[in-house]
């Protein structure tokens, strides 16, 4: 019999939230890394004009990192909003509606960001 309580309880499988918890932290690390990399390049000596700023994001490896950051943000914000809505919005219908709106908002924003990134 599997343990249902205590330190030996099985936390994998459906609906324990471990996957969401873990994905929120992993995506947070990706975004923190992205922040650090942008900051390091911006703080390099020299004037930060258009050419240098756009040059930062036009490097292929930087595009890849930015792409990871964009997708991470969408996943991260989804888990966070889901947590907030579970705590404060009790009527199921309204909660579902706001959840759907959140998903649409995140997908639209992610699409726009990727479009800007990949025409550089």
């Amino acid at each position, binding site marked *: 019999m599997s343990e249902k309580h205590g330190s030996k309880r099985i936390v994998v499988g459906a609906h324990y939230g471990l996957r969401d918890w873990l994905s929120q*932290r992993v995506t*947070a*690390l990706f975004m*923190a890394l992205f*922040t650090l990399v942008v900051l390091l390049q911006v703080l390099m000596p020299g004037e930060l004009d*258009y050419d240098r*700023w*756009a040059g930062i*994001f*036009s490097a292929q490896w930087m595009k890849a990192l930015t792409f990871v950051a964009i997708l991470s943000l969408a996943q991260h*914000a989804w888990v*966070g*909003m889901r947590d*907030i809505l579970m705590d404060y919005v009790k009527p199921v219908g309204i909660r579902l509606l706001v959840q759907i709106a*959140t998903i649409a*908002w*995140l997908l639209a*924003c992610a699409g*726009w*960001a990727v479009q*800007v990134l990949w*025409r*550089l």
Partner: protein
Amino acid sequence: MRLQDARQYRLPLAGIVSILHRISGVILLALLPFVIWMFDTSVTSEVSFSTFTSAFVAGLGFLPGWLVKLAALALIWAYLHHLIAGLRHLWMDLTHSVSLEFGRQSAVVTLALSVLLTVLLGARLFGLY
């Protein structure tokens, strides 16, 4: 317990950091189109880059420049608080630092550091130095 008694309870500093973590997350989500607009105009071309820089001075459409700066300031605080509070969480997860004392002290550091950096960057944004 009466309502009057309930009002005696004070939210601890770690609780304030926690609720601000949520509020800052929602602010970041709401301002996401503004972030992408800034990314779009600042990297797309030299012409759009000048649209980007002038938005903070001359404004953008019907929005005055100070309102654009205010939105950027909100973004700066929300980002800093969310990042620092998030790093605090990761640190607690990794090192199992779950004592009351650590919770309180790291909450003070989170609040102080995010406000201090916001003031510094905000002063720069509004041209105070």
